[in-house]
């Protein structure tokens, strides 16, 4: 066993991760702000007006990164959950639990902005488009995960049960995605995509990428804050929590 390995496991204990997370949070908030300002500036002032969709298309600078994040967070959540099951580390389950609400929020933002985008594009708030439908199902999966964890009182059991659900979900996500896509093409559903249009300018892509980074940093910052709260809640009666200055007051 080499030293690096031991160090990793040291941070896997809630006690040593709690102060580390506390130190990292301001940095991630700072990065969120920087990427947010740059990304929004590009999306509103630099990116050209779309030839077909006019100004309304600019909502994709929120919509697309939120969709990416909602899928990505589910993968990360499942990875933490799997790690927790395999290595039986307490922190992994807490991370999965902390990520779920942010993932659900991202899925919700994606659906909401999708509806806003749909109104001028398709003339209706909701279209059973393959991507929107998959996003809706992903939102359901997040809600199921959160509900299951909330319903189980014993934290360790909640972590493990949630982990199995997340792993089953992650196997199913691609199956669901392709089945919905197939269902959609079979029924000739409407699908509009700025990404595929030739007018997609380089600056648009940059704006989207920077906004994605902003969302990414935000998700990490919020997940770390939530993980700190979960650690405090679960370890209330340990000595080290009682010694913390913020708890003592």
């Amino acid at each position, binding site marked *: 066993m080499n030293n690096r390995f031991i160090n990793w496991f040291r941070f896997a204990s809630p006690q040593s991760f709690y102060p580390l997370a506390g130190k990292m949070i301001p940095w991630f908030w700072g990065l969120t702000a920087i990427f947010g300002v740059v990304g929004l500036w590009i999306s509103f002032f630099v990116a050209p007006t779309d030839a077909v969709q006019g100004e309304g298309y600019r909502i994709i600078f929120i919509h697309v990164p939120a969709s990416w994040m909602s899928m990505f967070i589910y993968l990360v959540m499942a990875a933490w959950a799997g790690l927790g*099951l395999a290595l039986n580390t307490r922190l992994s389950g807490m991370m999965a639990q902390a990520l779920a609400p942010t993932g659900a929020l991202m899925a919700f933002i994606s659906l909401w902005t999708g509806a806003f985008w749909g109104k001028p594009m398709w003339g209706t708030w909701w279209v059973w488009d393959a991507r929107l439908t998959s996003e809706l*199902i992903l939102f*359901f*999966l997040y*809600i*199921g995960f959160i*509900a*299951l964890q909330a*319903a*189980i009182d014993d934290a360790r*059991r909640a972590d*493990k*049960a949630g982990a*199995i*659900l997340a*792993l*089953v*979900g992650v*196997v*199913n996500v691609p*199956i*669901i995605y392709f*089945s*919905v896509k*197939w*269902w959609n093409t*079979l029924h000739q559903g409407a699908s509009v995509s700025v990404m595929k249009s030739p007018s997609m300018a380089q600056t648009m892509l940059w704006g989207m990428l920077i906004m994605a980074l902003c969302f990414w940093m935000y998700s990490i910052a919020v997940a770390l804050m939530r993980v700190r709260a979960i650690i405090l809640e679960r370890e209330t009666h340990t000595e080290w929590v009682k010694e913390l200055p913020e708890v003592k007051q």
Partner: protein
Amino acid sequence: MSALLAIVRRDLLIAMRRKSEVLTALFFFIIVVSLFPLGIGPEPALLKKIAPGILWVAALLSTMLSLNRLFATDHADGTLEQLVLSPTPLGLLVAGKIMAHWLTSGLPLVLLAPVLGLQFDLEPSALGVLVGALLLGTPLLSLIGSIGAALTLGVRGGGVLLSLLVLPLYIPALIFGAGAVEAHISGLGASGHLSLLAALLALAAFFAPWATTAALRISLE
């Protein structure tokens, strides 16, 4: 292997002595299917078009109803602990329980569906495809559902939670199952849908008992 047959026999015997539970789920299926024409209107062309979807959604809901029973009674009377502590591998016993669940809740739906399909004026060949799709799809529902049933064992509000967990996972089965009948009616041929359903079934038959076993151990701990 004899243990597998024994658990199937045991669960079938119990289901036989508690016929009302099996019949409740079955009548639920019939009632849900019959509600749609009342809600939508008696126009034959429209009903014919939506019949596969209605039958499949009703099959999903009816399966949900019986899933609670899969492990809950064994959990309540302590026999589940005995199954876990049996020298027989738990995965085998779980597979047997899922099989018995399909025989008591899935198979009756398969047999009943063509009769209900007649109410919607489906042609005989479409009925055949419907039966085939349900035959491949309902075991899939039992397999996926068993994971949810094991996860929600002994949990507050387990029944509602179970549907929240399992119904999204049923979507591929719904799409390919109902799609098979629709594709057949529209002349596209159902073989693509049916082979995908069979592939999903093979995948679930391999992984679901394993995931259910892990979930059961967690629930009992």
